[in-house]
């Protein structure tokens, strides 16, 4: 069984979506538990690729085709997952800050977080501080993730923190930020608990924040 999970994980890492679908279909016929296929092969494959990304072995195209392969496998699994849904890592409300229309980095973070078991509420771009706070309350978010690509818009991030405070949510919602001009130092200076360099470290950081919240 371990060999099967390893092979399927490797196909996810190769981004071979057709092979992934074939293998998942066959595994279901062989009565392997859907939840095991999901966690021990598909998610494990994406996580292994994330590690290889950090080591500089793979780059964004490989991440994208791997997520696509994983998602195709999840589509096949979904009807069989009822009642055995994987426990979600947490809920992240995600968006690009007001005054900024960049969405590529934010979209990649969303794909990686979802692939790693987070529920993501994507607010899109040019999102006012009040909307982050409102969505965090409505969705009972654990983390608010904010993207900013401009020096001009990064100063608005602290307004989100203020809005969370005003809404009485700050104690239970962690704030994670990222984008071209953002540094850990800047995150510290405005009181954001999390900072991510890219879509892979965003997953690590979100997991760290979830642990620190417990």
């Amino acid at each position, binding site marked *: 069984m371990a060999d099967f999970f390893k092979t399927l994980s490797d196909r996810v890492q190769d*981004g071979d979506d057709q092979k992934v679908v074939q293998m998942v279909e066959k595994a279901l016929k062989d009565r392997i538990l859907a939840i095991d296929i999901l966690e021990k092969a598909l998610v494990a494959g994406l996580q292994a690729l994330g590690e290889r990304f950090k080591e*500089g072995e*793979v*780059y*964004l*195209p*490989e991440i*994208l*085709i791997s997520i*696509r392969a994983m998602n195709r496998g999840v589509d096949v699994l979904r009807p069989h997952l009822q009642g055995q849904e994987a426990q979600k890592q947490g809920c992240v409300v995600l968006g690009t800050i007001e*005054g*900024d*229309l*960049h*969405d*590529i*980095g934010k*979209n990649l973070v969303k794909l990686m977080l979802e692939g790693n078991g987070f529920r993501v509420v994507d607010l899109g*771009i*040019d999102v006012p501080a009040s909307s982050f706070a409102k969505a965090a309350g409505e969705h009972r978010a654990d983390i608010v993730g904010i993207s900013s*690509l*401009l*020096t*001009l818009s990064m100063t608005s991030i602290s307004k989100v923190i203020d809005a969370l405070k005003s809404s009485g949510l700050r104690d239970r919602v962690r704030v994670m930020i990222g*984008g*071209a*001009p*953002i*540094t850990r130092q800047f995150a510290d200076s405005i009181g954001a608990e999390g900072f991510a*360099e*890219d879509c892979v470290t965003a997953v690590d950081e979100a997991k760290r924040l979830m642990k620190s919240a417990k």
Partner: protein
Amino acid sequence: MSSRERFKAVARCRKPGELSLTNFFNDFWNETLFGWVKNGAPSQLANSSFRGQYFGFDHVRVLREIVSGLRQVPYEIGGVEAYVATPPICPLFHMKALEEDEHTIIIINRAGQTVKLLKDHPQQMPEYLAQPVSDRETWKEYKKKLAPDAPGRWPDDWKGYVEKMNARDIPVCLQVGSFFGFLREWMGLEKLLYTFYDDPGLIEEMMDTILTLELEVIERALKDVKVDWALFWEDMAYKSGPLISPAMFRKFMIPRYRKITDLLHKHGLDIIFVDSDGNINKLIPLWLECGVNGFWPLEVAAGMDAVALRKEYGKGAILAGNMDKRALLKGKEAIREEVMTKLPPLLESGGYFPSVDHLVPPDVTLENFQYFINTMREVAGLEKLPFH
């Protein structure tokens, strides 16, 4: 020494200590200039010639009338002037407004992209909603706009144009394309990255179309015009590194870069820059390997360090930019520290054109930018400018 010779001498590290602030590397967002004028700066600052004199810039001329590299096409949204960076397509698409609300507007721009813009800040990068190339069918139509002889590619009065360009003692730059950046402009980043795996043949075909265009442009232009340096545009990295792997770069891009740099070298042109934002540390050795030897803007926030690059690559690399724009937001102390840390060693080695690490953003005050310029002049032993 003529202005052209001086530019080349600085690039080739033959003028240690010489400060060359060019108008090309020292450029601004429109909003920055409009903001300064609104706050009492001379209204002529919007004019590039005046700006050059005001800040003491060395003038560099880019042959923008030959439609080859990335072109900045002006347009206007609600009275606010902006530019869209457009691949070398002839003719351009017609601009069309699709819908708008109080805050934003959705248009098809001159590059054929459907984009959402902030009405008050139309020069900011937009949200891309649709791209002109999505598959082989759309590419087949689009590529007609990349023909070397497409109407509008060349100045009408070629002879007059050549005479004018050759008569002036100003360093002249020819844009020579882009093998990643243009493809991203055509397809969007996500689609492009998938296509490297899903249809590599289409990627090769698109790159070869660019190659054919650029080789023709170089042959024809260099036959008549005295060109001093060449410029690629890629923007193919982000904060953590390149958008594709070095292996993919090697496979798809190096053979095509080589064909262009070989032709440039054949014409005696050996100052060949690439403009790429983000962290390009892993790409620099690959670019150097295929004859691209100049790098701009070396973004500090992405971890680029010109002093370290000089140590690593010696005088084989020409460097431009790398002054942290964020220091100009902080104030005089931070500006002085940034300049004093980097400029003395880089001026001493030569081969360096100082500038902020991208366009000067709108939140930099004129006073801070003036201080930045005069601090650099002080390091180079030049008189401070009065900025009247």
